[in-house]
């Protein structure tokens, strides 16, 4: 079995992960998009691919094949696991403040470099007596940036005590470890903070620095400062290559394109593809302390996966049988990329990558995929059990298809914690993901005496399978359209979202639905 881990990156984040994995006897390959010249001593024996541009990623956990373009030549490497540890990129907010980069109007990173080099220069800030740091004016900033600004102020104070620091901001982002204390230290060191709420400062570039005019929000006075230098804050983005990696590996991304979707079920370093983790500024902007924590978590994740790969194969993953016509539907719908094309075109499921959501079983047109809990027989049996007998007084029979991870848990909470009691005619059908419930099951429920059908799924952005909840919504709206076309009350079918800890809401949803169905009366499909 291959035991290699391929690390994408060529900066501190990648080196930290590599050094930690070496402690666990992992074989490492580092793939750098540029070329690495300053490799740390601990990584000297590591294979380094320079100028490696990822163009393809195939396989699953334990057996990935990565294809690179290296200066026009194709290069392939096999690895059991991969870590995306690319560095992020920083973009100065000159536009936000209507400024252009100049000798006296510079970005925070540039300023930090000048400060670092200050020891070697005799007069790094000659002719400068005041510096204004502009941060979070208009757009929200971040504690990572504030910490850098405050550290810069403190350094500046010791290197050039005569220079005055102004910090202009809206919301001072002290929500990071030790920042409130540092805020007070900078104030004691003479830094002047100006916070804006209802007004905006006017910032105009001048020959030597800039002119800032503003209203003091406490006194109402118009004021003007003329710092000799303006330092502009920055925002973070993933590098274009990090975005390319996410695209080639078909990973979910967040709104800014970082290689990890903003989904709480991916905490801390996981992606939607088992065996591929992401660490450091490849997944979000970070402080140096976060770099270390992320590399620890990435190394821990890979080490845990290695142990899991050595244990017996899970026997509960999806299986593709010989009814498969190789239409590739499953390959397209699997959120975890667990379905692979083997030599000869046959498809199989990589057991360790399968998360057992069942979306493939629902979409396969040949019903060629089996998975425990997802077969038509099992779901139909759940629908048909406990169907109430006809009573004199109408009690609606409700079938609620519940995602096992959210709505089913919420139902259990409602039952256990003396929340409002549930309708007597409620039948809960638990499924691995509500996204597998389509027209067939909905009709099957109506045929089995249901007066109303609920599909209860996770909130948008909270699905373990990424898009199972969206699929559930789509299927219900298609089914509703169908019911309407055939002249059946579409009000008898509803989709709602819930989380595992929403017992009370579960009770409210099913009780409200019972009321609605009571008003509608028995379903016309009842025999």
């Amino acid at each position, binding site marked *: 079995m291959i035991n290699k881990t391929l690390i994408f990156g060529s900066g501190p984040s990648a080196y930290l992960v590599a050094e930690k994995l070496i402690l666990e006897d992992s074989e490492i390959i580092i793939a750098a998009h540029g070329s690495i010249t300053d490799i740390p001593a601990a990584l000297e024996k590591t294979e380094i691919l320079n100028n490696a541009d990822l163009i393809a990623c195939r396989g699953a956990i334990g057996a990935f094949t990565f294809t690179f373009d290296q200066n026009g030549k194709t290069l392939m490497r096999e690895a059991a696991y991969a870590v995306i540890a690319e560095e992020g990129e920083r973009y100065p907010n000159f536009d936000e403040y209507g400024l252009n980069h100049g000798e006296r109007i510079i970005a925070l990173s540039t300023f930090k470099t000048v400060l670092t080099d200050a020891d070697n220069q005799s007069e790094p800030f000659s002719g400068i007596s005041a510096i204004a740091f502009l941060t979070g004016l208009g757009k929200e900033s971040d504690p990572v940036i504030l910490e850098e600004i405050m550290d810069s102020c403190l350094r500046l104070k010791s290197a050039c005590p005569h220079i005055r620091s102004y910090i202009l901001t809206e919301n001072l982002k002290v929500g990071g470890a030790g920042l409130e204390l540092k805020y007070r230290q900078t104030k004691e060191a003479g830094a002047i903070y100006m916070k804006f709420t209802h007004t905006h400062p006017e910032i105009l570039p001048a020959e030597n620095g800039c002119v800032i005019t503003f209203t003091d929000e406490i006194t109402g006075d118009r004021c003007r400062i003329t710092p000799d230098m303006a330092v502009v804050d920055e925002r973070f983005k993933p590098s274009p290559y990090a975005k390319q990696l996410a695209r080639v590996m078909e990973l979910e991304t967040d709104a*800014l394109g970082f290689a990890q979707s903003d989904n709480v079920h991916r905490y801390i370093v996981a992606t939607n593809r088992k065996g591929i983790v992401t660490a450091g500024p490849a997944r979000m902007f970070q402080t140096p302390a976060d770099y270390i924590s992320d590399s620890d978590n990435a190394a821990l994740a890979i080490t*845990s996966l290695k142990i899991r790969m050595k244990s017996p194969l899970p026997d509960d993953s999806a299986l593709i049988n010989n009814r498969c016509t190789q239409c590739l539907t499953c390959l397209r719908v699997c959120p975890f990329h667990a379905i692979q094309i083997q030599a000869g075109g046959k498809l199989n499921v990589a057991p360790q990558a399968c998360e057992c959501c069942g979306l493939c079983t629902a979409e396969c047109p040949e019903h060629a995929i089996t998975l425990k809990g997802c077969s038509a027989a099992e779901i139909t049996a759940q629908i048909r059990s406990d169907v109430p007998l006809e009573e004199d007084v109408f009690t609606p029979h409700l079938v609620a298809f519940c995602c096992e991870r959210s709505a089913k848990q919420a139902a259990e909470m409602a039952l256990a914690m003396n929340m409002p009691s549930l309708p007597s005619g409620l039948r809960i059908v638990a499924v691995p993901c509500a996204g597998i419930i389509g027209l067939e099951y909905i009709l099957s429920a109506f045929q089995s005496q249901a007066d109303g059908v609920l599909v209860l799924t996770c909130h948008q952005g909270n699905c373990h399978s990424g898009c199972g909840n969206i699929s559930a919504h789509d299927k219900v709206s298609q089914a509703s359209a169908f019911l309407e076309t055939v002249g059946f009350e579409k009000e008898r079918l509803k989709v709602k979202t819930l989380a595992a800890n929403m017992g009370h*809401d579960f009770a409210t949803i099913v009780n409200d639905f019972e009321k609605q169905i009571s008003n509608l009366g028995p379903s016309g499909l009842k025999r």
Partner: protein
Amino acid sequence: MEHKKILIIGGGVAGLSAALALEQLGIKASIVEKTGFLGGHAIQYACKATDQCVKCGACVVEEKLKAVTENPDIRIFLNSQIKNKAQNNGRSVITLNRQPDYIDPHKCTDCGQCYAQCPGKGAIEQGFSPNNHPLYALNADKCLRFTGQDCHICEDVCPEKAIDLNQQPYKHICEINAVIVASGFKAFEPVDKPYGWQVFDNVITNLELERMLRRQSIAVRPSDGLPARRIAFIQCVGSRDATLNHLWCSKVCCGSALRMARVIKTRHPESEITFFYMDAQNSGKDFEKFYAAVQNDIHEIRCLPGDVYQTSDGSLQVSHFDQHDRQSVEHIFDLVVLSVGITPGSDSGKLADRLQLKPELTGFFSASPTQLGIFTAGAAAGPMTIEDAIASAGQAVWQTVQYLKTC
């Protein structure tokens, strides 16, 4: 590694995450929890999603708790505290003070009869999650029997005969290789603040609102149980406060308050919500977008109120200095929510003594180890979000594993 044993102090989200991470590496973990329930503070939080998840992480705690309670390899000591720690041939010997399981977890079916019929106010407590088993625990401080009265109603009404109040506390000794301190935090108690907490019924803390939303999905006035239409959130109560020497931002309260404000406003659009604050702190990756959306729903006042009074009709009057008009302004609310800060755990001093740890000047434990074989996870090291606490638990487990190789 399989023969190594780790003791985790604290059964909150950090402790649960650490236990699960160790278990995945095949290392045995035991959790010592001082209360009768696992889950810590975070299990008390409500889901704050509108139709969209707002990434508070509360559901993840639920999931971790379920995974831990379903895992037979993770040992759990409820109602237990560290008595002392000694060395024995390279291993540490820890003595635990254990309160008995007055409710036998093997017999209890979580039916709640004891809870419903207990005459002592709050003597039988209910857990916050159905994944707490037993879902009920006895609080000896409030139990009539333990305060000298002859009451055994709970023993009698339990259909499973699962309750036995005659048991005695005992000591439990365990040999372990490393300790992870995940003892969490204490929510600031704003008794000395001029906001009337525990004086006026309708002044509650953010933690109390979290519990209310978790249990009832709606913000009500505790005085009469009616929906609260006008709600004030007061931020930084006990945080960023030099008079208390609390020179830290609690980091999570802005996110918690803004998310709760948003979900209340979404469910009850007639709500009028005011947010008194100093500096709005970020909550997650997409804060810019989230904050812009919340700002449409709420009234922001960038100032902390001077005081809170109750009016003759039971409403609350909040006064603050309006910077724009330069005068004191009063607002009337049905419910005032104090966003109380995260402070060092109530027994962290005791714990530090017993484990020979040196806390930081703030009173929190250092995130980096100060004592061989003892590591810190979660809010014991300072204010953290749920996500931070999980990351910190991962880091503590990694440090533990590296340490175990050396011993």
